[in-house]
């Protein structure tokens, strides 16, 4: 396609505005998706990407502005109507039933009563055409996250959509799986379909997309040609300021082991065998160790085992600061000066419907200052709360709102601040910057770096490989419940880690030797 000819817009949003109470989620946002193009929608969390997508597929109705399809104004009262007109959406959270097969899941989403055999045939045709590897008769419960995503894409493609919207599709994929997805997207646009690709990973966007619309704070900022931009210039558009890099200066001494995990095995919940197989890990004072891996490979089980929410069979299998802690609950482990930050902020790290100040108590009630003889000392609680808010720049409306009311970044700063203020010697964080805006993410990484410099041992579990490479000292990879031996970041490569994430055990023999040595 010659560069100077702009194809007409297939799906167009013109001046869409959507308010939720006082919050203006989308303020006069325009976007045009063209046939044969991959269009990126860029923005930080909270920039209004999801709201825009929901209005474009009929899940939400705009307060003002209009949608155009093929040049004519159109209203989508519900998602079924938009689907019928040829708009397919693959959301970040899949709507699949684990107990059913792929073809059964697909059949549930389609109108009419197509025989499963014929449907399976159509799935296989689709698979061949777009290079999507999907086996129709496998049960969804047995599939990896990447495979499930392909099922969702196939389900959309069977409706022969003209516009395909992919909501942060690569956030759950290994680098290899992402490559495969990009090839599929190229085939789709080659057929004249339009793809809207939502992401905050700038390198991908620059490689894959023809145009990019940048949103910030619910407003349209720019439409650019991502191939002519640098990752830094796109980041500036997204954030509105220069994004600080986390300083990585290791001038301090690496000290004694703060966390020792020895041959930790945790049985699964029954559906998928063992959750954790023979995990070995050592983290010393002053270092940050990262655990990379695609979601759903045992990271949650590992976090729960380390935090004490799930007790280990062998007390010696987890040692915190020389004390065997495998049989200790969360409160006893915190008493050993360990701090934990789970992945899910609402419902796990914080109680959504309780006030933020009460949420301080979750991890501090055993520390002796706020709770004495079982009685909560409100004044101490309030001053601790005020200190977290001040030192970690937690912003919110009102004096003491429910945790639910905070933005992701601010709640994460609160949750991390709550642990850091306890002066832990070991801090374990699952997905420290997931769904957090770039400025808050940089702040969180700098805070953790500073704790390490003070002699704290830090373990970071993350699916964001770039983040781990940026600010950890050693990286291990988790895949199907196994953990590789951590290697220094300087001695490894993105590619090697990516391979291990995909299950190619690049150094299993090495890891086993290590295990035997211990």
């Amino acid at each position: 396609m010659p560069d100077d000819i702009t194809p007409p817009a297939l799906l167009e949003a013109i001046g869409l505005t959507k308010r939720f109470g006082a919050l203006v989620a989308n303020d006069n946002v325009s976007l045009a998706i063209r046939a044969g193009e991959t269009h990126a929608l860029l923005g930080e969390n909270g920039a209004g990407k999801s709201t825009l997508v929901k209005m474009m597929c009929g899940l939400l109705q705009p307060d003002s502005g209009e949608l155009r399809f093929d040049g004519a104004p159109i209203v989508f009262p519900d998602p079924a109507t938009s689907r019928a007109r040829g708009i397919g959406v693959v959301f970040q959270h899949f709507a699949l039933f684990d107990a059913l097969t792929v073809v059964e899941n697909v059949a549930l989403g389609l109108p009419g009563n197509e025989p499963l055999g014929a449907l399976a045939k159509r799935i296989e045709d689709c698979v061949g055409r777009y290079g999507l590897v999907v086996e129709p008769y496998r049960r969804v419960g047995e599939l990896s996250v990447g495979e499930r995503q392909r099922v969702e894409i196939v389900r959309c493609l069977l409706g022969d959509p003209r516009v395909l919207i992919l909501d942060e599709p690569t956030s759950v994929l290994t680098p290899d799986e992402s490559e495969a997805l990009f090839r599929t997207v190229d085939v789709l646009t080659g057929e004249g379909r339009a793809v809207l690709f939502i992401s905050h990973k700038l390198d991908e966007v620059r490689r894959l997309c023809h145009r990019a619309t940048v949103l910030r704070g619910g407003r349209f900022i720019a439409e650019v040609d991502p191939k002519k931009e640098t990752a830094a210039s796109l980041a500036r558009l997204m954030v509105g300021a220069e994004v600080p890099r986390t300083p990585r200066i290791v001038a301090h001494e690496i000290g004694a082991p703060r966390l020792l995990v020895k041959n930790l095995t945790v049985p699964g919940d029954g559906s998928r065998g063992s959750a954790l197989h023979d995990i070995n890990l050592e983290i010393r004072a002053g270092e940050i160790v990262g655990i990379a891996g695609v979601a759903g490979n045992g990271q949650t089980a590992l976090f729960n085992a380390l935090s004490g929410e799930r007790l280990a069979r062998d007390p010696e299998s987890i040692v915190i600061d020389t004390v065997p802690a495998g049989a200790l609950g969360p409160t006893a482990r915190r008493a050993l000066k360990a701090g934990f930050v789970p992945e899910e902020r609402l419902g796990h790290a914080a109680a959504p419907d309780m006030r933020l100040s009460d949420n301080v108590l979750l991890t501090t009630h055993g520390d002796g200052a706020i709770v004495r003889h079982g009685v909560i000392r409100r004044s101490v609680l309030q001053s601790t709360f005020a200190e977290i808010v001040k030192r970690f720049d937690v912003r919110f409306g009102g004096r003491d709102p429910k945790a639910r009311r905070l933005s992701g970044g601010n709640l994460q700063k609160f949750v991390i601040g709550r642990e850091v203020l306890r002066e832990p010697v070991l801090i374990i964080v699952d997905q420290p910057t997931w769904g957090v805006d770039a400025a808050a993410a940089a702040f969180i990484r700098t805070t953790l770096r500073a704790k390490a410099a003070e002699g704290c041992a830090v373990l970071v579990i993350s699916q964001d490989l770039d983040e781990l490479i940026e600010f950890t000292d050693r990286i291990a990879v988790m895949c199907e419940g196994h953990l590789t031996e951590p290697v220094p970041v300087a001695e490894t490569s993105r590619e090697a880690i990516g391979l291990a994430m995909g299950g190619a055990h690049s150094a299993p023999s090495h890891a086993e030797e290590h295990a035997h040595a211990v």
Partner: protein
Amino acid sequence: MPFRLERQETVSGLALLAAPLLALIFTLIVGAVMFVALGQDPIRAFSVYFIEPLSDPWTLQELVVKAGPLLLIGIGLSFCYRANRWNIGAEGQYVAGAVLGSWLALATHGTEAGPWVLPAMLVLGALGGALWGLIPAVLRVKFGASEILTSLMLVYVAQLGLDYLVRGPWRDPQGFNFPQSVTFDPVATMPLLFEEGRLHAGVLVGLVAVALAAFVLGRTLVGFSIELGGSAPRAAAFAGFDERRVTYGVFALSGALAGLAGIIEVAGPIGNLQPSISPGYGFTAIIAAMLGRLHPVGVLIASLVLALTYIGGEAAQITLRMPFDVTRVFQGTLLISILAADVLVRYRIRRLKGAAHA
């Protein structure tokens, strides 16, 4: 379905307080319709039901006497419901407490036992209720059985057990074959607060319970862990609070308070053990807990309101010849209205436009 409930992002505290008042008003409207349907003048009926009992010192005392058990049981249930544990069987725990406490009264009957009998009866009553309440808790923790079903079914077990005792081994031999025990000795009876009337010391127990419960729920880590466990169970586990211990704790406590209410009632206004020792206090207390927003002071107010429906119901039986079931209808309508008002405050009804499709 052309309608859908959507969660409200912000729920004002005022609206949550207004919900029970709206529910009360709605209940009165339903009541008016019911009176008309029964052929009564609704104004006169309301006056008999809700105004006259308040204008007579004797019935005012009676109101407090009736509110007492509702208050004790309702406070215990508030602990359960805050922890998201649904104890529906307080009526059974009330009976179990009354039975175990009465055992001591009957065992010491006619002996020279001193003033230790009544306090010991109260302790036994609380113990009996707690043990009965722990059965559904154990079944839930060990086997995952729904505490709603098991606690409710244990009500009938307790009631039939009581029935057996007062018709069989514990029947008063000089009672002309009436199914009831001997009248308790003075040392086994709740002292009256005033010489006139029926106001007894049990009411003071209820007030102490209000103060203690308000302190525990509002100021202590135990109260916080109950609240947290009900509001966000995973966060509670992360905080290190054992879900099983909270389950056992709230069931034991609410059972104990229900059992205490049972033995106070038997040792107070009733005076002996009979087949029927409760006009459904254990069930009505559920309404008191919900209407009182699970807050001890709220439960106190709600208990007085609900006690009024009992007193008014008795008056209406006499003066208007209306069945006592009218009271049950009032209480039931009130519970449904509170639950509905809560949903309407927390959620918004959205009408779905466009065609219906699967």
